[in-house]
């Protein structure tokens, strides 16, 4: 063999795969990061001179009413998150114990309320909880109550509505983590002499904790920026931060103060995320169980404390072991709870169906007779039809843009091992985590200056921003199971890059790509927050039109519209499910 001189190979100049993330990054930079930064600056600027000032923050500090609003917002968000976890955990556990076919079927019962528009859900609760609403009618008619009970326009109404709105998110976040828990671990603990409660509290629960924490985080930060439920189901005493921001922008046109409130909201969100990341790491957010690498996060003292608590819980619940192990109905009791929880999630939504077909011109329950008049009203109303068409158009455009941008970004991250992957990943998910109201206000400020308010383009940009994280996660998940060696095989067989994309990669990812597009479609079709600011006065989208109508007067047309929206979302959901199989 010749000892020929080693010639070093000059590196080929290559467009690394990371370039594919650029379109999504550009959109996020211009319409997400920049407006957020701008908003933050507005809060510390004198509106006249532009000089740095702390006066807006000082005003906040000096006005007790804002402190109260902050307090209420945190209280409601915290209670919502707590109830969602408490009520959602057993439901998620019940689902996780099923075989995968049954599970995917039953999960539909959680997915349906998850994808149902917040407006429809809130509208349904207004019908149910009102003074002359369904519940009060039933209770007084049967003589259980003499006078109607006050179920809404108070904290009770808000909490019911919020928990109902957020619980599906909590369940769907906990479920994948529970699914990934190895059941044999509990069995193994059993062979070592652990009782039922010890197996649950010392083995199962700690393993499911990352899912619980992720669910808690997501429900908490979503609730922080929420305004639909408190606006309709709460009274004056339940005004939340997001509502105050809307008032500051739309009625008082006080940008500086709105910016201060928005910054506070972002700060609260970041603190929540920081705490979460410190203990669990952000990876659990995207639906995967975090890697257990043997190095527990958090301090040893905290861990010891947590273990102490879990041991006490195991001890406290041990007296109940006897019932559970002897009585076969214990499992039945669990199922009954799950059934009640599912009814709580689904039934309120179904109440809009009879009312949409009522013959009366009020929302009285039960309807005195049935007719199609409210659907006729809807389909003959130019305002409703225009709004529906516009929503469809915007949703289609959004689905296309978000899928392309999110998909390319997912592809880029799947193919690159750059040290930028981490920050880019976090940035792609950020629009899902930063409260929508803040994104919307920031967008409004920017778009008002560049003339995008009241345009379809503006709406599509805003909705694409919100939908990108979903597309990114969905396509990222299918890419994870994609065998990249197939590309190599195709390459050796003579295929070029485009051919590989067209003939191999896309056909294999089709299911994921189409579900991503459908998710984006539904996200846009249901979106209200951005629409409130960007859609403009006359031409509106369907959710915006519903929002306006619900403020004016509750009428059966709204029920008919809700039914239409529900059916569209259901059809899309079922289509997605079929594709993912």
């Amino acid at each position, binding site marked *: *063999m010749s000892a*020929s001189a080693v010639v070093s190979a000059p590196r080929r100049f290559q467009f690394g795969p990371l370039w594919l993330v650029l379109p999504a990054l550009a959109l996020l930079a211009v319409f997400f990061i920049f407006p957020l930064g701008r908003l933050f600056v507005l809060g510390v600027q004198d509106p006249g001179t532009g000089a740095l000032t702390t006066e807006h923050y000082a005003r906040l500090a000096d006005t007790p009413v804002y402190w109260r609003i902050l307090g209420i917002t945190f209280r409601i968000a915290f209670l919502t998150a707590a109830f969602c976890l408490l009520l959602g955990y057993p439901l998620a556990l019940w689902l996780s114990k099923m075989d995968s076919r049954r599970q995917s079927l039953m999960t539909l019962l959680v997915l349906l309320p998850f994808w149902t528009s917040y407006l429809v859900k809130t509208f349904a609760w207004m019908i149910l909880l009102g003074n002359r609403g369904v519940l009060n009618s039933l209770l007084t008619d049967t003589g259980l109550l003499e006078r109607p009970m006050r179920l809404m326009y108070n904290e009770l109404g808000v909490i019911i509505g919020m928990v109902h709105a957020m619980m599906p998110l909590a369940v769907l976040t906990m479920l994948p983590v529970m699914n990934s828990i190895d059941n044999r671990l509990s069995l193994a603990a059993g062979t070592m002499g652990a009782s039922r409660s010890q197996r649950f509290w010392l083995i199962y629960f700690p393993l499911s904790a990352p899912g619980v924490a992720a669910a808690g985080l997501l429900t908490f930060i979503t609730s922080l920026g929420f305004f639909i439920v408190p606006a309709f189901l709460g009274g004056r005493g339940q005004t939340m931060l997001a509502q105050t921001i809307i008032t500051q922008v739309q009625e008082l046109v006080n940008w500086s103060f709105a910016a201060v409130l928005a910054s506070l909201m972002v700060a609260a969100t970041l603190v929540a995320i920081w705490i979460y990341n410190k203990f669990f790491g952000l990876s659990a957010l995207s639906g995967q169980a975090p890697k257990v690498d043997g190095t527990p996060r958090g301090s040893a003292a905290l861990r010891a404390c947590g273990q102490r608590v879990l041991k006490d819980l195991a001890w406290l619940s041990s007296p109940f072991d006897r019932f559970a192990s002897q009585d076969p109905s214990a499992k039945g009791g669990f199922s009954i709870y799950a059934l009640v929880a599912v009814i709580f999630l689904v039934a309120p939504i179904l109440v809009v169906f009879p009312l949409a077909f009522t013959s009366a011109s009020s929302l009285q329950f039960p309807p005195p007779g049935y007719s199609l008049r409210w659907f006729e009203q809807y389909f003959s109303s130019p305002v409703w039809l225009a709004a529906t068409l516009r929503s469809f158009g915007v949703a289609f455009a959004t689905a296309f843009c978000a899928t392309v941008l999110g998909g390319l970004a997912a592809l880029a991250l799947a193919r690159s091992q750059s040290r930028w992957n981490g920050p880019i990943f976090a940035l792609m998910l950020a629009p899902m985590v930063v409260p929508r109201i803040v994104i919307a206000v920031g967008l409004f400020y920017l778009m008002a200056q560049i003339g995008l308010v009241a345009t379809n383009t503006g709406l599509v940009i805003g909705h694409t921003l919100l939908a990108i994280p979903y597309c990114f996660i969905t396509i990222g998940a299918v890419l994870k199971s994609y065998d990249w060696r197939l590309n190599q095989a195709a390459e050796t067989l003579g295929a070029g890059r485009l051919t590989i994309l067209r003939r191999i990669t896309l056909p*294999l990812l089709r299911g994921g790509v189409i579900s991503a597009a459908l998710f984006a479609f539904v996200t846009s079709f249901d979106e209200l927050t951005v629409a409130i600011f960007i859609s403009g006065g006359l031409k509106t989208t369907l959710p915006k039109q519903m929002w306006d109508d619900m403020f004016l007067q509750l009428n059966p047309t709204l029920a008919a519209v809700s039914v239409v929206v529900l059916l569209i979302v259901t059809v899309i959901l079922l289509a997605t499910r079929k594709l993912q199989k």
Partner: protein
Amino acid sequence: MAAASQQGALVLEGLSKRYGTFTALEPTSLTIEDGEFLTLLGPSGSGKTTLLQMISGLTDPSEGRLIFNGEDWTHRPVNARGMGLVFQHYALFPHMTVAENVAFPLEMRKLPSAEMKTRVEETLRKVQLDQFAHRFPKELSGGQQQRVALARCLVFRPKVILMDEPLGALDKALREHMQLEIRRLHKEYGTTIIYVTHDQEEALVMSDRICVMNHARVEQIGAPSQIYGNPETLFAATFIGHSNVLSGEKVSSDGDVATIRTPFGTFSGKHTARDRSATDVSLIIRPEQMRLGSAPGDAFDGVTGRLTDLIYVGAETRLLLTLGSDTSLTLRHDPSAGDLPSIGDEVAVHWPKTAARIVT
């Protein structure tokens, strides 16, 4: 070896691959002639796949050049090389049927569909899969999938075929059939084949030359008989065929002959060690060269040991001898040499000095 090589030859010049600080392949130089059947043989992780992938272009070398037919192909795009690669893990397209998988490379070459059809059918027949043409890969057994992978590569008749353990999942009969098929194809089309296998017997049967690899480097390259008869290293001697090894220190060497001192005596043999100056060497004697009885003359060397086991393997009987505490020898019983000794006996063995090799 001349730098200007024959037409159609594949020349590797110091090709190496590192992942970070880990070396998957040390700088390797070798020439593969046009129409040659070269086998890469070595234990798991020795860099066989890495070398193959660099030739195919799927992996960029860290250093070195690849020259095909006089042209620098180091950075030529994979799909412009027209080499066939049979993957270790099949890499069949899961959304295409067997026939579509096999037709894929022809489509890429824009063959007329009628010709495409006959070529696909003919190739599938060759690998005995014609009745599975419309199944999807996941509906096939491992061995069937492997044959699809083979067919997908054979169908476009590439000049150079790289095969990464293409027969690993097949049973013995099918394996031998496919070996013959590959040999036939190799002769018929004059294809250059670079073939990876773990199986030394397969390597001996099929190859023009064998390239023994170990620890990310080439240990020895040569014709099967050359490697079997004149191993250069202990690894090559023990990886191909069985060897009796007596380790020791080289005391002298004279041209082609060297002398080694071991705890069991001083012996001489042909000096084939790659590193001629090394003093830590081993004496290698193949089992079939050893005979029972003490050395009959000057042309022979011999030792004595305790017989510890007798193994019957059909046609022959193997004798296992122990020398000292940790050295053992194997030899084949030659019926003409008399009766079998019994276990526990002290027995003498000898071998011709010309049959012994001294390696590093």
